[in-house]
């Protein structure tokens, strides 16, 4: 079993961090993982995306071209990647940021007002993690025990006070 995931959005939305949480989650489940950021001349407000692979086999190319799972957090990213999702794949779209609906009938699309949900729950800026929660609920690719450890691993020690908030964001996504 291999999951190839693309996470995409604006710089500053925590795209790379969300990808790291997924990759660590896979690692905590003792699977093979890779994480690869786009590293163009990006900056806050520009586009950012990353490829995450989670597999039972050694990972070949870490560069995901046709994801089976997509997280899109803004319109340019949605437009860029929605057509690339493999038939049978799933897309998780932040509907606070993207007001389009996908016309494809060969993939499952989930529309979550993640940025808004985060804001309402005093978790400003954690829409990325809300989407991770929804992705985990719909796919079950990472165990709940592993994702908790993954958050603890991914949050830098200097920001350890944010671990609880991240776990809450995952829960909100799971319940949506």
């Amino acid at each position, binding site marked *: 079993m291999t999951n190839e995931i693309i996470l995409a959005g604006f710089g500053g939305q925590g795209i790379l961090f969300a990808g790291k949480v997924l990759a660590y989650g896979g690692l905590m489940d003792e699977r093979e*993982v890779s*994480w*690869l950021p786009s590293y163009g001349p990006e900056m806050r407000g520009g586009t950012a995306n990353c490829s995450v692979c989670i597999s039972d086999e050694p990972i*070949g*190319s*870490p*560069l995901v071209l046709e994801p089976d799972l997509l997280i899109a957090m803004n319109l340019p990213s949605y437009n860029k990647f929605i057509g690339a999702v493999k038939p049978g794949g799933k897309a998780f779209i932040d509907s606070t940021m993207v007001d389009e609906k996908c016309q494809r009938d060969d993939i499952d699309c989930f529309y979550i007002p993640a940025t808004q949900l985060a804001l309402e729950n005093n978790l400003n800026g954690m829409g990325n993690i809300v989407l991770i929660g929804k992705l985990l609920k719909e796919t079950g690719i990472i165990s709940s025990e592993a994702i908790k450890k993954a958050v603890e691993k991914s949050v830098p020690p200097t920001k350890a006070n944010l671990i609880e908030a991240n776990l809450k964001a995952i829960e909100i996504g799971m319940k949506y």
Partner: protein
Amino acid sequence: MVLERNLMKGNEALAEAAIRAGCRGFFGYPITPQTELSAYMAKKMAKAGGVFLQAESEIAAINMVLGAAASGVRAMTSSSSPGVSLKAEGISYMAGSDLPCVIINVQRGGPGLGGIQPSQADYWQATRAMGHGDFHILVYAPCSVQEMVDMVSKAFDTADKYRMPAMILADGLLGQMMEPVTFPEIKAKQPEKPWAANGHGGKRNHNIINSLYLKPEVLQKSVLERFERYEKVKMEESDAESYLADDAEIVVVAYGATARVAKSAVNSARAAGIKAGLLRPKTLWPFPEKQLKEACKNAKAVLCVEMSMGQMVDDVKLALSCSKPVHFFGRTGGVVPKPSEILEEIKKIGGAR
């Protein structure tokens, strides 16, 4: 004891591995896609009791490496393609002075300033002409973050053993990606360096580190001695991974990040009933000629895949003495080949025979 597996970027893993291998002098100048390495060194090297210095230029950095290496310290620099070109002069001086060091090249697209995406277009530079004059450097080609860690330590040891510079030839994809890694235990001891210019306390004659020989016969002698050493390196240090090659009719040859993509293509080819295999050079100089010949013993054709216009393919043809048809497929300028493209090439060659 089970070592903890952590996610780490290739660039950071190279830096941590170097510190653990006893590197105590790092001199660099920032450049994408290598910068995390320097940044990690800036944070950690002083705590390890070593020197981190961001030089005023690449040329200054490599000459600082020369100075540190001459005093017997394990020294390293890192850069990406255009920056490595600037270091060429200093690397030649180090080879001429028989000084060990490790140079990291996290390759990006060229020529000129080129781009910042992954590339393997510096193969010729690394293996043929890493500066002026008759000389070689050791060239290691990792294909995963874990192998980057393992090869840094190997590169320092081998550079010390033969008193010659060693290069880790990586690329932007390997430098930027995160994978799980474990680190070996810190080594307690490094080899003695009786040749080092590190102060003699009046107890021995002074050591001279130099690459200038004005008498042709004397210079020739020093070069000939060095090339005798290179023969030994060729005998003992070449390394490669052979994958499903034993019964392979088509052998794909690829190194570094490209080898990962090629391996996926080989697996797909096998699933489609094509007897494909992979030979992945882990050292580019010395080139693993023996291993390649062995891997190609049943091959009807060979396919070399690179992120360049075709550079290693020369060494593949030389190693096989052109006894088998050698095909080439490449992407360049920062474009990473797709598994499906390589599979297409394998099918084309398979069908053409």
